[in-house]
């Protein structure tokens, strides 16, 4: 197997991150925004792993495990919130959910 250069992996991570960010900024549906956030988390995890392999340290992979755990917890809370939002407002469009704006 060909060794992959760390820089290449970081570029892939950056591309993934930007994709996720653009998704968060442009999507109107909350579920898709959550998916985009997951993509951004994975991009961050990929960057940790690449860095860990470059310096031959286990820390990178340890951090990825943490991120996985955190992402799982976050998704469970977020999905519960999404369910409640849908229950109350019958919509998942963030542009329609502007209750907290200052009048």
């Amino acid at each position, binding site marked *: 197997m060909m060794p992959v250069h760390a820089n290449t992996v970081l570029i892939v991570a950056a591309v993934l991150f930007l994709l996720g*960010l653009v998704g*968060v*900024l*442009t999507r109107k549906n909350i579920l898709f*925004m959550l998916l985009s956030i997951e993509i951004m988390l994975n991009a961050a995890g990929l960057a940790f792993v690449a860095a860990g392999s470059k310096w031959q340290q286990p820390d990178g992979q340890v951090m990825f495990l943490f991120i996985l755990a955190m992402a799982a917890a976050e998704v469970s809370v977020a999905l519960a919130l999404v369910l409640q939002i849908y229950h109350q407002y019958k919509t998942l469009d*963030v*542009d329609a*959910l*502007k*209750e*907290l*704006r*200052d009048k």
Partner: protein
Amino acid sequence: MQQYLFLIPVLPLAGFLLLALAGKTMSKRAIAFTGTGSVCVAALIAILLCTDYLSGNSGNAVYIQSLWQWFQTAELAVGLTLRVDALSLVFIFIITFVGALIHVFASAYMRADRDYARFFACMNLFVASMLVLVMADNLVLLYLGWEGVGMCSYLLIGFWYETAANCRAANKAFIITRIGDTALIIGIFLLFRELGSLQIPAILDQAPQRFSSGSGAITTIALLLLAGGMGKSAQVPLQTWLPDAMAGPTPVSALIHAATMVTAGVYLIARMHTIFLLSPLAMTVTAAIGSITLIVAGCSAMVQTDIKRILAYSTISQIGYMFLALGVGAWSAAIFHFFTHAFFKALLFLAAGVVIEYLHHEQDIFRMGGLKKQLPLVYYCFLAGAGSLAAVPLISAGFYSKDAILWYAYSAAGGNAIFWIAGLVGAFITAFYSARLVVVVFWGDRKTPVGSPPGRTMTIPLVILAFLSITAGFIEWPHNLLNVHLFSEWLGTVLPATSLRGGHPPEFILQIVAVVITLSGICTGYYLYFRNTAVLAQWKSSRFPAAAREFFFSGWKFDALYNHLVVRPFLFLTGINKRDVFDRLSDGIVTFSKQFNRSLSFSQNGSLRWYVAGVLIGILFIITIQLIL
């Protein structure tokens, strides 16, 4: 006795504190007991102090009690020290004794008022402040009392604050006396700069060594002190507040605006007599102001129709006599007139209060009349007071004090024929309006329905004051009649004896002239208002007397003059300067915060994607900063 000195002002002060803090929860009986009791006990202590002073060491007895240090800076140490000598004792006696009688009277007179506790709280505070004023050992403490009585006067003139006119009268009194107070405090500052001390005995000791007689500095100081006295004692041109001050309850007029507070100026000048003796100009000015005032106010008193305003103008006029006496150097005569005036003027005010109450708050004397039969006791008391005011020869206290002033106005070192004639004109006017008061109020036919007669709580103080209005003069006789000079001997330890100038006619002739003038004043009043009222009606319809009456009635148009000279220009200036730079400053703060709030409010638009973008921009900003630095 010395160690109990502090009780005299502290008792009324304690009464004030109790009534002010717990007055709302106390019953009327308890309030009257506290308010009246504190002053009565103070009066008892004052009388004990007087007897102690008389019996014990009658030499240069001075009671001094140092309570504690008020404040101390590098050069100035001011202590709360009470100092009582013969002059202070006279004032303490009048303040507590007449004050106690008026408190007793007021406990019945004000019973129906719903602010009973507030009334007695203010009255007690007044008595305490006035006592501090006359017992002060230094000028700072004196000034504390001076301002305290001014404040209580303000509070009590505006006692019925729901009527706008009463509040205006209170403001007027406070603002006009403030002119005098400012002059006084500047005078005190100058004294400290020149002498480096504010202790009254030290000032009186050092002044003759420090200043040459008639020098500019001492004249300035004396005139400033005089201006302070003029404000408090309602002398021309600062007299306009006192007639309006009658808006307060009648016991207040009796205590504050007749017997005690308005004579604070007399006390101040007598207390600082060394300063005035060093400045002949200031003495002459004092005498001139006194004689102008006594005629100006007397003329106004002749034509007033409101019984309390008549008495107010009469008070101004009588204080004018005291100033005249001070100005010619007749120190003890001035204090003697204060002494007798306190009795008969308090009596007249209280009797007037009874009459007003009896006629259902009628103050116009021409709607009174015929009260001689209904209120015989009040009538005879009022007669004693009015007789004393008019200075009926030999049988009234007012005669003895006024005769002394008239005699010294001519024959004292600072006196001359002009002051004497002014005093005589004033005596005629005083006798005239006193007779007018008695005739119009008590004689003739009844014109107004009457209420219930006064109770014993109200009549007993009247009787005591009436007795004193007749007998208080017997302690000081004219030199040619009887060799009794208890009062001037009493004051001799504090105030210098009056020096006479050469070439004056015998005292007897001047006395005869004064007596004739007084009696003719009384007869004129009796004739015009009782025997032949047609003359008056004829005068009222002709042009010149009517115009003169109108002029006197408005108090010589002083109010209109000040209105045009001061009030209107001031209101005009404040009108055009309504939005000055300081207003703009505070307005600017308001406008800025409103705008800032609007811009922040715009960012809080509730859109989740805006917030995300905001977070992103924030992160980018921080990272950029980190990279650059």
